[in-house]
């Protein structure tokens, strides 16, 4: 809790789905029809130009977790119209997503193309692989991906651009927001209660960021 938080006397009121539906209304038929069960030429082209996605997985209890993935555009490989492969590059070794997938194979992907307001969403079932022919397609900077996540899609659809328009996500002026944040070294020093120079921590991390593959 941070000083200045507004503490309500009770938790905010919880609505049932029926109450929510009553407030937001019904989707029209065209929106209902936007969900496809496989990739078409446009979703395939979107994936080929997307350098970033978020990947949601959940554990056996259903507790979800969302993780960013990024590389050159098209780093997610289309194996066929219903199957994708996402490379796994060196990260923090926590393997949260892999542990989740072992417990619950559901996966939700949200692909983004810089400059484009609409995003592509894909949901399905996933599992890890070390299939050489799949990993070979992910070789970057002379290094292969160690593992890949195979996604068998059941739903694919474009999501409208309102959220990205409202958020001014691609407006260069929005990047000034990052300047309002403390450095990652300051955050790490506070969160890990380290008695270290925040600048040195930032430098360490920056050095680490130079080895991306």
């Amino acid at each position, binding site marked *: 809790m941070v000083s200045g938080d507004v503490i309500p006397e009770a938790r905010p009121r919880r609505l049932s789905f029926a109450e929510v539906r009553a407030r937001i209304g019904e989707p029209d038929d065209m929106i209902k029809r936007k969900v496809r069960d496989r990739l078409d030429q446009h979703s395939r082209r979107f994936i*080929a130009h997307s*350098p970033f996605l978020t990947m949601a997985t959940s554990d056996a209890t259903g507790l979800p977790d969302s993780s960013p993935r990024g590389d050159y*555009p*098209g780093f997610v490989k289309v194996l066929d119209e219903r199957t994708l492969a996402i490379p796994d590059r060196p990260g923090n070794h926590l393997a949260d997503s892999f542990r989740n997938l072992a417990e619950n194979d559901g996966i939700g992907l949200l692909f983004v193309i810089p400059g484009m307001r609409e995003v592509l969403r894909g949901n399905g079932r996933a599992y890890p692989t070390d299939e050489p022919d799949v990993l*070979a*397609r992910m070789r*970057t*900077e*002379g290094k292969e991906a160690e593992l890949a996540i195979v996604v068998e899609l059941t739903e694919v659809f474009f999501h409208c651009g309102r959220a990205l328009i409202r958020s001014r996500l691609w407006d260069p002026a929005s990047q000034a927001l990052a300047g309002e944040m403390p450095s990652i070294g300051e955050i790490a020093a506070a969160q890990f209660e380290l008695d270290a120079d925040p600048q040195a921590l930032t430098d360490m991390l920056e050095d680490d960021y130079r080895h991306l593959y």
Partner: protein
Amino acid sequence: MAMQRTILEKAEPVAEGALSLLLRGADGPLAPWEPGAHIDLALPNWLTRQYSLCGDLADRDTYRVAVRHDRLSRGGSEYIHLFLGEGRTLDVSVPRNNFPLLPAPEYLFLAGGIGITPIMPMLTAAVEAGASATLVYMGRSLDSMPFVDELRAAHGSRVRVHATDRHGLPDFAAEAAELGPGTLVYCCGPGPMLDAAEAAFPARRLHIERFRPAAKEFAPDTAFDVHCARSERTVRVGAEDSMLDALTHAGLRIPSGCREGVCGTCEIALVDGEPEHRDDIGAAPGRMYTCVSRALSPSLTVDL
């Protein structure tokens, strides 16, 4: 690297799974080239790929390349085949030649599949120079081999087409046995074909170009220092790092391409020290390719 703006004027199938791209200079004539040269193609998905020039040497307004859709594409050939549309602007490098055609009275050209691309302008140049020249052009099947009709029309009986699904592999040993005393052999194609050529022909007569690095064994990677003579800096290359990565991370700008020692983009000048060349190009004296090559001496001095 000097780049040139081009427009993709035409993308047309030239064989099963192979597209020919005709690139027209957007700002006037393009840089000249010689047989064996390749260009870097900068793709919209941030990848850069190298393709041999296979068009008309005399046409200064266009470049032609041909691209096979690799089943295990990492995003280069797949992108070109599925997503690159005619009319698009593409930046290409000035041509670079790791596979130059040396003067000789007689040539034997060996091409496999898409490896025909650097060989085509070589054959034309050899014939125009008055040399005697033969092309043995092999591929899985006739349908998979680009430019067969064009080659036959231009060069007739100089071209021997060999579809391995019907005729098996050509006999390189027999070709080698009949090699004239001054004949040079130029070979481009898939790895196993190049290995067979290396086994059959004398090394000093054989010139090859690989698209993929040959399997090689080296001593374990060790750390070394690189003294950069011009910038007066010393950069440590860790055992885990490539020289290219270490120099790039230190802020020294070196263009890079394949990162596998086949394209030659990351070439630098060596001033002192003993390099360990690990590329498949064959670095000239005083040059080295930083993506794969390392040092045998504790340090190298380079012109950076």
